[in-house]
């Protein structure tokens, strides 16, 4: 903030802005961007455009939900993209046994990865960034081996319905994401698991001394995160109608972390903003879409994204003196 703006509008209390901005800044930014687009971007305010944006953002939202939970425990999960690739690799192998079998196998792959991550973090005591780095690298490698490095077209109509079908005029993909948002929000607010998760992220030694099952909660968090990632993986396969383990979910861990951070969840743990995370994902999606529609270079888009991340982190930083 420059001194000029303060001088020009003495009515605005700067302390209020400081508490307001990290909480609602992301929503304000979305509103601004939408208003801008309505006036300056042709064909922005159309149903088909909105559909495309929502379909594109849905997998990111789903992965970001899991990431937000992990970050709430003061952790991070780099392996989400690899989990998506693993899920993608298993789908064509098991679709022969039916859609349900294929989906279950994909989810089980998520459970397995989550268990490994969780045990490495909670029981072995590795730092989350290192523990999940192992499967970030190894998981995708394994996925490519399983799929023999081939891109497989998917033609099972029941399965493709998940990626391209509609329910009450809204894409199934978006329904799934919306339901998961509600479920995760409910879990955080209302369940024993959610409350324990926040306490562990807020002060782990205190949680341990209070007799909380810290290790079990941590392992569960990583399993939930990986299962959400595998849901995102199978939905992505259903949407692009092919399975390619080497490209599904590539770099999604960065988009997810960005959404969580921009949404106002602190990396220091103890707090999870579910709606903020959704808004963070939407904002980044809108920024990219806007830049593309105005024919800006992808490199420019990336730099703008970087600026948004920096602003979000700067705004949300804890004041050091208390």
């Amino acid at each position, binding site marked *: 903030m420059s001194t000029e703006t303060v001088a020009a509008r003495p009515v605005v209390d700067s302390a209020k802005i400081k508490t307001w901005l990290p909480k609602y800044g992301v929503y304000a930014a979305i509103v601004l961007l939408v208003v801008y687009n309505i006036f300056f971007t042709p064909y922005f305010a159309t149903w088909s455009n909105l559909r495309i944006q929502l379909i594109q953002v849905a997998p990111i939202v789903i992965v970001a939900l899991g990431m937000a939970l992990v970050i709430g425990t003061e952790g991070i999960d780099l392996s989400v993209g690899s989990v998506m690739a693993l899920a993608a690799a298993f789908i064509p192998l098991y679709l022969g046994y039916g859609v349900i079998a294929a989906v279950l196998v994909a989810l089980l792959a998520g459970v397995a990865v989550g268990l490994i991550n969780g045990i490495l973090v909670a029981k072995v005591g590795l730092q989350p960034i290192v523990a999940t780095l192992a499967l970030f690298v190894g998981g995708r490698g394994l996925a490519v081996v399983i799929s023999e490095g081939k891109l497989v077209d998917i033609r099972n109509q029941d399965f493709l319905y998940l990626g391209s079908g509609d329910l009450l005029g809204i894409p199934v993909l978006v329904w799934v994401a919306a339901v998961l948002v509600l479920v995760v929000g409910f879990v955080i607010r209302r369940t*024993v698991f959610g409350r324990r998760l926040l306490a562990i992220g807020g002060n782990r030694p205190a949680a341990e*001394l209070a*007799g909380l099952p810290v290790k079990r909660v941590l392992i569960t968090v990583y399993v939930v995160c990986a299962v959400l990632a595998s849901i995102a993986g199978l939905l992505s396969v259903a949407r692009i109608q092919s399975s390619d383990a080497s490209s599904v979910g590539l770099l999604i861990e960065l988009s997810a972390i960005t959404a969580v951070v921009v949404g106002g969840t602190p990396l220091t743990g103890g707090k999870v903003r579910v709606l903020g995370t959704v808004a963070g994902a939407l904002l980044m999606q809108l920024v990219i879409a806007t830049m593309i529609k105005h024919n800006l270079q992808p490199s420019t888009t990336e730099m703008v994204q970087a600026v948004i991340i920096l602003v979000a982190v700067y705004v949300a930083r804890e004041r050091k003196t208390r």
Partner: protein
Amino acid sequence: MALLEVNDVSKIFPGVRALDQVSFTLQPGEVHALVGENGAGKSTLIKVLTGVYQPDGGELRYQDQPARFGTPMDAQQAGISTIYQEVNLVPLMSVAQNLFLGREPRTRLGLIDRKRMDREAREILTGYGVTADVRRRLGTLALGAQQMVALARAVMIDAKVVIMDEPTSSLEPREVQTLFGVIRDLHARGIGIVYVSHRLDELYQICDAVTILRDGKLVHTGKLADLERIKLVSLMLGRDMAEVRREGATAFSGTATGDTEAAPVLRVSELNSRHKLHDVSFDVRPGEVVGLGGLLGAGRSETIKAIGGAYHLDSGDIQVDGQDLKKPTPVRAVEFGIAVQPEDRKAEGIVPGLSVRENIALAVLPRVSRFGFVSDGKVDEIVDRYIERLRIKASSPDQAVGDLSGGNQQKVLLARLLATDPKVLLLDEPTRGIDVGAKAEVQSLIDELAAEGLGVVLVSSDAEELVEGSDRVVVLRDGVVVGTLTGADVTTEDLMATIATEAHP
């Protein structure tokens, strides 16, 4: 000529006078003990001496010149070195590399002369009783040896003053003797040593002078040989009579509540933990408050944490209501009815970002929920009950605990413990850092809880609080039970006398 002089130095933090016009003088070749309980201002004083903090008043004189150390680096370059409890060297580098870090001998080509470095390191370290291969990585050495390397390094950098912060806390008895040998050697070379420790035997063995701090003020400085042990202890622990008169003593009723006939609710036998606890045994009957007395580092907090399953035990038995608590973990301890209030409220007690409500309900979530879903009604019942009973002052139950005053934070923590319906309450410094009013409330609460039949174990550095609050006091020194005060013997005088008795040879 004094080597280092501290004249009327003050250091003020928001709300606290950490140092209030403290003065002391260090002579060359003197080993000067710096003692005081937690919060007495020792660490602050050391930080002022080493340039970590700037004093808010008073002056430092070093070698008869006014001195000002802006950064720890300034102090080090001037010749003031500090050896901390945790060694701050590079564990992955070799012993010799650590010793010469930044001042490595060079060959003519400007490369590091490894052979010479290793040879010189070997020679130097032999003088410190370290015989390990100097090419080994430092991290693979025993902690005592690492500390010697740190000391050797400090002395090599032309140190004139060496500050040692509890240097023996992790050493074996044999290593302690080696350290003392080195200290005597430094003493002979005219190096001044500031020695911080709570082990009285050590102080009397090695130190010439002593400075005692209490609540940020200087209470005594002079020759150690002229000061009796009992006097030293009472200076460290005692409160000014004026202060007692002003604040009144404590809010404890002073009547014994324990039923001496009843079976103990907590029985602890022969707890052992390497270096820290040696055969600690005692028991607590329902309705009884048992104090754990002793100086800092005597093993009081370790005992409490060990019973609560949060501190490693090599051996020992813990029984609650006659049932064995095998392999204690915090989860199992809570199940058995043990509630621990840790010493460090902020680091290990409250979850500052969560609300009063969440903090109170934290340990009993399964009991207030069905199928994993928390019932707001049941939570409110518990939360309201304890907010009222403990008179917790918060703007609403949804206020973040981090925003409350220290006293209210402590009450929230106690509410969490009580909500678990414990049989035994272990309280480590329950009134530290809270205001006088809250202190009295917490003290009378402890009385009340004992009267209701809980077994209470109380640790307090405030001798009056300990003596007035406890029906019995078990005195620890260096992890050993050295005495138990009962009945009419539960007085500050007896407590201090027991602490001050000399250790068995």
